[in-house]
């Protein structure tokens, strides 16, 4: 066992909630350790739909969520504009959709404090030429899209600057308790297999869909309805505005333009195991068909990947409800286990949305501060009033402009052709990590391998650049093989049409001209 650590707060879970809590706690002067069993955004946050909700989706079904989203949408824009693209969005009702829903929509938005501007179908078509020309009603809303890796990267870097320790690949395996009080937890380093002990004044459980399991380790109860949602990414942007269907929340009702792709989602299926992120081919077909209704032509557009995320829907103890996951509130829950289970110094913050991460963090840290007995400190929004940030959202053409700025001769080279990543970008990141970096990390930070070819060409170039810096060819080869296994998992259900042709080329490159040395490793 390596040396013990201690901090005011131990945050378990490196999703949007946990990183938000670590960021907020650091900002308020607490010392923080965050433990995440995989990498940041390795859970639901890295598998979400990408939408910074305007709130419009929930104005009828879940007004509290809607109001929170509307307020937090604004807050997140000023906290981390570089992780946000200010796309804007539309709510549209199609022929055959219940006209009463669209009629009631503006009033419901007004009540929930969600900004929505009615547009004529013609105006909506000119704002977004890709939208179904047969729309009956349309509203503009301040939707935006979020690059979650960038968002959590910004927040965790700011927290780290303030002294927080971010431990990726560290799983909490047990708690240390003294009587009815949690003293800390034991972490297992997945790289070395070693465990280390962390003591903390308060432990915050921010493990999303896993928070029931983690709470149980401390003898506490948190009931999570795990609800799986499937998303399908198209290889290109099909629209530049987010397009929501103006109906009650249902399957495949939103298309989000994020970075270079468009993502249709989602579904809502209760699952027993939060690690169950399987995707059925029928679900992919249903999503593609749903996208085609919002954007005619999407049905034959090239699909890139399909994946699923598991929502942590919180059900309060003794809570009513048939268990139909669509009807469970999307709002978050803060559980003080002292009052609920009689366990001191242990708090769970779960449910909610990525959009509401700041609010969730604020509430959780308020409770932590109270528990530690520190005087209350102002939360971020209050601090904001003093120092308004100037939004510098990222824009789709940024990467192209970046590449253009160095184009010509051999000043630089393009490593990832699909996403326009330069050799200098990769080299800088590899150097910063002192070679301790994998292709997967490059993917999350730079988007290498996320474009149409899914790494078919760039993964080898990245492997070469890492090997050059780290001089550990064997480990790099192993990493390359892992990368490919992971990539093909995500394309299994979308390998038809143009993507199938790509995959055949990718597999051939992998199996033949660019085959990693040694025994051939079979891919899924």
């Amino acid at each position, binding site marked *: 066992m390596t040396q013990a650590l201690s901090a005011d707060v131990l945050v378990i879970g490196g999703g949007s909630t946990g990183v938000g809590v670590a960021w907020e706690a650091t900002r308020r002067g607490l010392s923080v350790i965050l433990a995440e069993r995989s990498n940041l955004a390795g859970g639901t946050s890295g598998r979400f739909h990408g939408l910074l909700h305007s709130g419009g989706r929930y104005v009828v079904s879940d007004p509290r969520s809607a109001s929170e989203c509307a307020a937090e949408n604004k807050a997140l824009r000023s906290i981390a504009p570089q992780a946000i693209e200010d796309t804007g969005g539309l709510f549209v009702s199609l022929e055959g959709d219940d006209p009463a829903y669209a009629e009631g929509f503006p009033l419901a938005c007004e009540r929930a404090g969600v900004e929505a501007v009615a547009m004529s179908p013609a105006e909506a078509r000119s704002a977004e030429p890709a939208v179904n020309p047969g729309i009956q009603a349309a509203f503009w809303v301040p939707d935006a899209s979020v690059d979650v890796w960038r968002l959590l990267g910004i927040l965790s870097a700011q927290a780290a600057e303030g002294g927080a320790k971010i431990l990726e690949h560290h799983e909490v395996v047990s708690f240390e308790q003294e009587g009815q009080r949690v003293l800390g937890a034991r972490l297992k380093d997945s790289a070395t297999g070693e465990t280390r002990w962390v003591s903390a004044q308060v432990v915050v459980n921010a493990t999303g869909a896993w928070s029931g399991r983690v709470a149980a380790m401390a003898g506490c109860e948190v009931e999570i309805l795990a609800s799986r949602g499937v998303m399908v990414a198209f290889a290109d942007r099909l629209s530049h505005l987010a397009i929501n269907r103006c109906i009650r929340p249902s399957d495949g009702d939103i298309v989000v333009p994020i970075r270079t792709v468009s993502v249709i989602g989602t579904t809502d299926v209760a699952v027993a195991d939060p690690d169950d992120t399987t995707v059925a081919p029928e679900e992919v077909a249903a999503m593609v068909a749903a996208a085609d209704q919002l954007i005619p032509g999407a049905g034959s557009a*090239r699909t890139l990947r399909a994946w699923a995320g598991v929502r942590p829907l919180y059900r309060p103890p003794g809570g009513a409800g048939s268990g139909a996951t669509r009807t469970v509130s999307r709002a978050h829950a803060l559980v003080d286990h002292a009052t609920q289970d009689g366990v001191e110094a242990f708090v769970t913050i779960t449910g909610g949305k990525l959009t509401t991460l700041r609010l969730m963090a604020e509430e959780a840290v308020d409770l932590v501060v109270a528990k530690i007995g520190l005087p209350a400190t102002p939360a971020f929004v209050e601090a904001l009033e003093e120092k308004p940030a100037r939004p510098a959202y990222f824009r789709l*053409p940024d990467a*192209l402009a970046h*590449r253009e700025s160095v184009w010509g001769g051999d000043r630089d080279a*393009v490593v990832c052709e699909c996403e*326009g990543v330069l050799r200098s970008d990769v080299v800088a990141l590899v150097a910063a990590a002192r070679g301790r970096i994998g292709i997967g990390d490059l993917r999350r930070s730079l988007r290498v391998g996320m474009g149409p070819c899914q790494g078919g060409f760039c993964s080898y170039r990245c492997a070469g650049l890492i090997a050059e810096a780290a001089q550990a060819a064997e480990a790099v080869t192993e990493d390359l093989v892992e990368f490919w296994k992971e990539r093909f998992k995500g394309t299994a259900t979308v390998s038809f049409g*143009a993507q199938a042709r*790509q995959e055949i080329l990718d597999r051939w490159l992998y199996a033949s001209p660019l085959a990693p040395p040694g025994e051939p490793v079979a891919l899924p």
Partner: protein
Amino acid sequence: MRDEVVASTDGCVKCTICEQACPVAAVTDLFPGPKYVGPQAERFRHGDSVDRSVEYCSGCGACSVVCPQGVAVAELNIRARAQIPRSRRETLRNLALGDTESVARLAGLVPGVANALLGNRAVRRVAQWLAGVHRLAPLPAFAPRRSVRSFWTKSPGEGVPVVYFPGCSTSWYEPWLGEMVVAVLERNGISAQIAAGRCCGLPAQSNGFFGLAARRVARIAKELGAPVAKGTPVLASSTSCALMLMSEAKDVLGIESDPVLRLAEATWDVSEFLLDLHRQGRLDQKGLSPISRRVYYHPPCQQRRHLSGRPALELLALIPGVEIIESTQYCCGIAGTYGLKAEKYEVAMEVGRGLFSEIADSSPEVVACDSETCRWQITHASGVPSVHPVELLYESYGLSGARRPLRQDAKRKSARR
């Protein structure tokens, strides 16, 4: 609704076949290659244009022709080029090169003066400095008004009716070619009615003036509406005019109006039409008398985009005595007005280098090539006279009356460095 050209990028599997085929990327680092500026860059385009490197695409279309997945690379690039923000000077230069009809109408009033000016080294230096047109670039000479008049007053002969669309180049620079086309058709029982001298819009399009280009095409579609409705074929001897009317009006400009679509259906490249006659057994093959001449045939990039094979080559093969050397090179570099521009002249000459040296090595007496701008470039760079394939048919039929002024080639030759 998804745009068809943009949707075609779905097909790209990054195979780099287009990169291998691109004649511009092969010779300069200024151009990142068709895959990069095409399907790859397209995914990032939204709002203001940020990528200027696509400017160096010459629009030859090699990428679209070779793409095994049907990606409309060249079409994407033309559109992207049109979005690049430009200085006033650049816009003016491009307008001067893109609005060929207006320029020709003006200069055509005083062809002698225009030619004297354009042939003057000092003037050309000033023009390069002021207007960005390279001082050595092969600008065509305006035809004497007398020969222009002789072409326009040619009366259609007896026979099956067609419309001959002369475009700018035949109308103002090479009217004798128009006379030859009409005569060769007449010889084969086809009566060609000469359409008004109009620009097809392609130069405007490739210089980024889509609105002007669209108006040009629409006007032609309107003027030719009546014969097209009757099923009369429209023939063009300029490969760019044929390309514009056959496909680019829809594929690049996105015009889907009925008259334009019907015109597209009716349009033929003149060689393709003559070959079709031959296949129907209606071409007078017996009347072709021998010409013992060594001819180097180069199919221009634009002609390849007609996707009709190499009809001119098959026609030339019908002429007894002609020895044909077929080009193995893709592009002469000029690509319409690309190689005329000061910043691209050298690139264009470099692109054509393979072709020019192949021509030099095979020492032909004449080069046959379907596109006028390519002919001007080829003669400029190789010193070998160049003709439209129909000119050789005309000669072989023993027809007379129309004559290519000899001075022209000589003059162009002397413009070389």
